[in-house]
């Protein structure tokens, strides 16, 4: 299952809360694509994602916009 979370224009702590909600449902092999446009969200999310068992990839397709791909291993 692939989840998409669009958090463009949303500030802390909204993206982290939305991500936490989805992460609770995540099963092995599921993935999440989260799009954000505030750099502080990036740092708070990186902290949150330090828990093990996740594969995380971060892209910056546009200056100041980040796509975060998270896969549960």
């Amino acid at each position: 299952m692939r989840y998409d979370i669009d958090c463009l224009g949303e500030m802390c702590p909204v993206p982290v809360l939305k991500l936490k909600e989805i992460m609770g449902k995540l099963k092995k092999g599921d993935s999440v694509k989260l799009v954000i446009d505030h750099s502080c969200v990036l740092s708070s999310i990186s902290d949150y994602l330090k828990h093990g068992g996740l594969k995380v990839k971060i892209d910056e397709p546009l200056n100041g916009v980040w796509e975060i791909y998270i896969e549960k291993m």
Partner: protein
Amino acid sequence: MELASLRAFYQTVYYKSISIAAKELYLSQPAISMQIKSLEQELNTKLLERSNKGVKPTEAGNIVYEYAQKILELYEHMNKDLESLTNTQRNIFMLSCQSFGHYSLPCSLYEFKKKFKGVDFDIEYISTDNVIRNIEKGMCDIGFIEGEYANEDIECITLGASRMYFVANPEIVNSNILTKEEISRYSLFIIDKKCYLRQIIEDVFSSHAIDVHSFNIYMESSSFEAIKSSVLAGEGISVVPYLSIKKELYNKSLIILEVEDMVFKYHYSLIHSKKITDPLKLNFINFIKGYGKKSFC
């Protein structure tokens, strides 16, 4: 001088009516009249013209009205500051220009609140000019502006630089690279003259020998959000801050137009009164100076 009589006079002029002022202040009309009379006696001048149409300030009354507004506002700020001393809930009042305040500021405020529990922010969004004017007048201590400004009473901390771009709905343009001539065929939506960024836009235009008035100016607005929705609808082009259009660029509902070598660059800064002594406000300024600079998104 009694603050109460000043307030009675202020409300009366504000509502152009003694009876409405009386209602607002939960007083009787004769009480209001008495207070105004005592103010007139004390200042030794007539402040109000009374007629059957209502009340009107005299020339002296107009001067007193302007000062009364400032005195009462300062009094209110003093009370707020005092309240927050005894209260664990503290409040920082500040002013901000919209381009910075709406898009960049909220994140650092959130970070600050994480560090300093129980702090609340009271932010008023006004134009850069008005932020400066109010800080000069001592109505507020901290403000965020576009550009830079300092004098003997005001300290300026430059926080960073940002850009504005020409943008359009991709459906109304054939290419994202346009010449000056091509650009002037589109209707232009532009921020109004009260905004500092308007000056930047006009400066860049004139350095490229373009007169703003050669455009068909469709709408001047004080809000970038309003401008954005018109441009999204394909009604024309505009010049807007990058920070305000990230979402639309990502969704490809807007594109950046490159017009020759036109670059709209501006700085944004924190300005504050040099007289601040409140430790919380000083902490906030230091936070913005250090950590905050990084956290502006």
